């Protein structure tokens, strides 16, 4: 457990020392949403919802892709020998989930500012956005590990990730539709539980499969 915290702190320190990556992603978020605003103006709620989650997907690919690619082979071996593969992947999952949480909230604020605010139920929707950001980041973190291992770039992540993320995105769309109306439909908690169950499945799979990925 302490090893995981140390590894997360290391990632955080790297992020603080090399701030250009963090601001780079922030700028990516801001400029994408600004371009969207220029192209779409203030769309109706259904379009708003669809655009929001698509932008989340692209942000996630870009924010998470570097997490494994930045580590050189030698450094990887070092982490592997001092902490073990499982601790390493858990720390990456947690760190990326936190990073994506920040990015999701920033993009939500920008969306509300630029593309209008059709959300009827802001608290529910913020909660959904946080959950959604974490779900997306978990899947893409693991795919980033695979892509890094295959010595591929972010394009490979998109090829692998966009079909695989569909279950999560479908569920998220369904839940977030609830935030666009005054009446909360029944069965919402069931879908949220299903989404959380999928997230847990991803984490379990990542911790089981990651050691095989990095064994040499």
């Amino acid at each position, binding site marked *: 457990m302490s090893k995981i915290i140390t590894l997360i702190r290391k990632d955080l320190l790297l992020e603080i020392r090399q701030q250009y990556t963090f601001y780079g992603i922030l700028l990516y978020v801001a400029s994408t949403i600004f371009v969207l605003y220029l192209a779409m103006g203030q769309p109706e709620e259904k379009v708003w919802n669809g655009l929001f989650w698509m932008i989340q997907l692209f942000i996630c690919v870009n924010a998470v892709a570097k997490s494994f690619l930045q580590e050189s082979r030698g450094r990887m071996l070092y982490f592997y020998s001092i902490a073990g593969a499982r601790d390493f992947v858990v720390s990456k999952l947690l760190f990326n989930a936190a990073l994506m949480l920040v990015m999701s909230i920033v993009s939500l604020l920008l969306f509300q500012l630029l593309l209008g605010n059709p959300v009827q139920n802001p608290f529910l929707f913020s909660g959904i956005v946080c959950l959604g950001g974490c779900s997306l980041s978990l*899947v893409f973190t*693991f795919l980033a590990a*695979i892509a890094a*291992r*295959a*010595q*591929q770039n972010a394009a*490979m992540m998109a*090829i*692998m990730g*966009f*079909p*695989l993320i*569909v*279950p999560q995105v*479908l*569920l998220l769309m369904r839940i977030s539709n609830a935030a666009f109306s005054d009446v909360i439909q029944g069965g919402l908690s069931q*879908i949220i539980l*299903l989404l959380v169950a*999928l997230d847990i*499945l991803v984490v379990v*799979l990542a911790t089981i*499969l990651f050691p*095989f*990925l990095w*064994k040499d």
Partner: protein
Amino acid sequence: MRQYWWKIVSIALLVFVFIAGFFIRVPDIGNLQQTIRNLFFHVPMWPGQFTLISVSMVYSVLFLRKPVIRYDIYANEFARTGIVFGILGLVTGAIWANYTWGAPWNNDPKQLGAAIALLIYLAYFVLRNSMTDIDKRGRVAAVYNIFAYCMYVPLTYVLPRMTESLHPGGKGVEGNPGLGGGDLDPTMRIVFWPAVIGWILLGVWITSLRIRLRLIEEKKLTVVR
């Protein structure tokens, strides 16, 4: 005989399915009319595809436990035949949908799920062929295969039950995602289950031929080296 009896069973079952499937008396249900005979060709593709990719996933697990190149080839070839079955299922479904739903593509949840499954497994081949080191290729592809399988199952076997669908077995409708519950006519059942078994066996047979070819190629390469 001990080796190839199941191939004879497969041929016999499929000959039976093709003859009986076109000649038995079928019940007249709504606008299905005679297209209901497609049940013997379209629906068995999905148990077939599911069986093949499940076997592929099992061989990926075996490869991770014990890295033998043979397991990697098995996993790869079973996934390949699974894709072929998926394409055949989509095409037969599109023909059927054209006559009963009015258009070949209706954005039905199950059509989308099947199309996404194709993308997932095509990505598997792209990933696998992007690496040249045989050991690493096998391992990374196996990890992706297991992960993809675990994402694919909820997508096609859990989510469609929760949404409205033109297929039987959607939200508020009896049955599972493939069939309309217990309403399968007894005479149709006599043809349907042999069809399922026959198509699955044919899929395994095709795969075993491909595997033999690949193993021979592999052997030739090692001898030359």
